[in-house]
């Protein structure tokens, strides 16, 4: 059985590391079809293009360049996709994978920990959001946590 996974991630190193996580699933019979997209805008197109079994979503994205005044990162840009999917009644499960531990932005102050973000996302997007995994490229433990989260989604499917 083919299981399609979309990674929405603007950091190439992290994206490659997440892809690597799917190479080691000895306990599963599924094969994974993994694709990735590097911006929120392009993710809309990919989401509308075909149904996905799982989305691994980053939270913090590069703001579009050009104005010269931009803050180079938008702390909670990934939430936009959850809002869109929720509104469009797309039921694809989403695992948030982020390197960050604080997400406060001018629109959404006060989310200063992974736990708070998890609570907020669970409450607002119960149809899509499953779990949050903190990625730390300096160590490997997060890969196990991500694999466990993927397993849970697979078991629910």
């Amino acid at each position, binding site marked *: 059985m083919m299981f399609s996974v979309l990674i929405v991630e603007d950091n190439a190193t992290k994206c490659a590391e997440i892809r690597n996580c799917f190479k080691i699933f000895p306990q599963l019979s599924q094969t994974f079809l993994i694709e990735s997209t590097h911006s929120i805008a392009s993710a809309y*197109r990919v989401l509308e293009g075909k149904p996905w079994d799982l989305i691994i979503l980053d939270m913090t994205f590069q703001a579009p360049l050009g104005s010269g005044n931009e803050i*180079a990162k938008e702390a909670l840009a990934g939430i936009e996709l959850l809002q869109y*999917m929720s*509104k*469009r009644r797309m039921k694809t499960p989403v695992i948030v994978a982020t390197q960050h531990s604080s997400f406060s932005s001018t629109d959404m102050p006060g989310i200063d920990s992974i736990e708070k973000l998890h609570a907020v996302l669970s409450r607002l997007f119960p149809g899509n959001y499953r779990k949050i995994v903190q990625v730390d490229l300096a160590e490997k433990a997060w890969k196990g946590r991500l694999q466990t989260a993927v397993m849970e989604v697979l078991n629910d499917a």
Partner: protein
Amino acid sequence: MATGKGALIGDFASLINPKRPADAIRTLLSKFRALPPRAREALTSALLERSTIERIASAQPKKKLWKEMHHLNMGSGRVCMVRIEALYVAREKKLISSDHAYTLVNQEVDQLRIEYFQGQMRTGRVRIPWDSIEQTTKTLVDPYLSHVKLLRFASGLPGDVSSFLSDLARYVANEIAGHILYGSQISIDQALSNNLRHGIVRPRFLRAFDDALQTTAQLKSLPAWDAPTLLNTFGQKGEELLTLRDYVSDAINNFVDTQLTIMVDGPLDTAFRDAITNTLAQYFQPKVRRQRTTLEHSVAAAARSQIERHLTAAGNYLMANVKSAVTDAVRRTRAGLRDSISPPLALFLDYLDTNLDQAFDEVQKWIGIAESGRDLIPFRLSDIVQLHLLSTSLAAWNKLRVKILTFYQQDSNMIEREFLINEKYIGLFQEVVHNLLSNAFKHSGEKLETRVVISLTVTEKNFIISCSNSVKDHKFEEVSRQYGTIVKLAKSRLGKRARDDKLSGFQKIRQACSLALHRQPIFNIQLFPKPRRFVIELTVRGKMEIII
């Protein structure tokens, strides 16, 4: 949070007729007309936002709008066009005022021009004057051709004529290679220096650090790389970042020195001489059917092929070797700090990781030959300044203290207004702006805090570019001591000093003027004590069609 921008896009998308996606924006705006005033205003404003337009277009898979954007590979530029159209529709339907529409359309047109230039900058940057290279080749080869013709058809000469012609080909090829690679203003090594080595590649990587610092610390002032700032921003371990920055800087410098510099007897030098020797030898040999192209064109083509190969190899080396060394260094720093890392420091390393990744991608694309003269459009001085700052200084370039002034003469009056500059001078202005701004930031002692005024004045008889920069107190004494040497360097157009000077900004500007205008600039250097300012002014005399 549940009903933010994504939900709005979802609502808009559900109102669009999937069979007529090209009319999406018009359809939505038409629907808004029936709404009460406040709702109409709020929705119109939200729809006309650039990011909304981009997302609506993106959310139309397989449909004409997105396919066009994707196919043309000009996503952001296409968004400008769609937004301009939307603004006209909104004005036509009286959803926004004409003045407001006009202001936003102008912003989009500016954005479109910048997108265009940024697109040009995403490709190879090494600008090589192929015409001049062909001309030089012809000048060097011509004196030998009459002898070659004689020998080709000679009979009864002692020894092997064919072998002699091969030796001659190697001799002439060495002479040509020496000129093309190193020996002249148009040399390939000079092009690598002007377009990549000199203040381009390394600053792009340092920008990755500056941008990460700017984003992490949300600095009101500009990022400074000193121990107090880092300790203040990141706590006890902040200074570790200086080590990492130095490591990356050294790695890039080493790459630039070894891969983007042509070494005598190095791989490119040898391959280059061999390729030109082969081209000449083939041409010199008797009974070989001549190609329709000229000899100098064939030599230039052989040279180009070797340079392309070399630059591709350099780009691959950057991505394979340098990138992996830098990624490891970031990883080591992260691992070393794991037990005592502060949240801002972790955030900085995350941003840095992404920024460096982008820097590697961009620089790899820069390491290629520029397609000169292709698809150029008129430009403004501000475009060139902005692109330079964005490229080498800071993503948030508007935070830099760089002021741009442009004046032109109309009848006997000087008018201060932005104007478009003839596209054929884009290379000249890029070179001049790059050298003047790099110089200003490098020698002011204030780095990104430097206040710079760059101005262009075009009259009927000449044009003048001036760059004035602030100078820190401690640096002022140093600059004062060097003032005499700087002035001599600026004025040396002839003699040994000028011949030996291949690296100064003055020489690079001279070469650019010579290539673009066949004229030499006159430099005027001034140092003012109150307020402390350093001013370089260059004047190019003669009537030129600078403004279009």
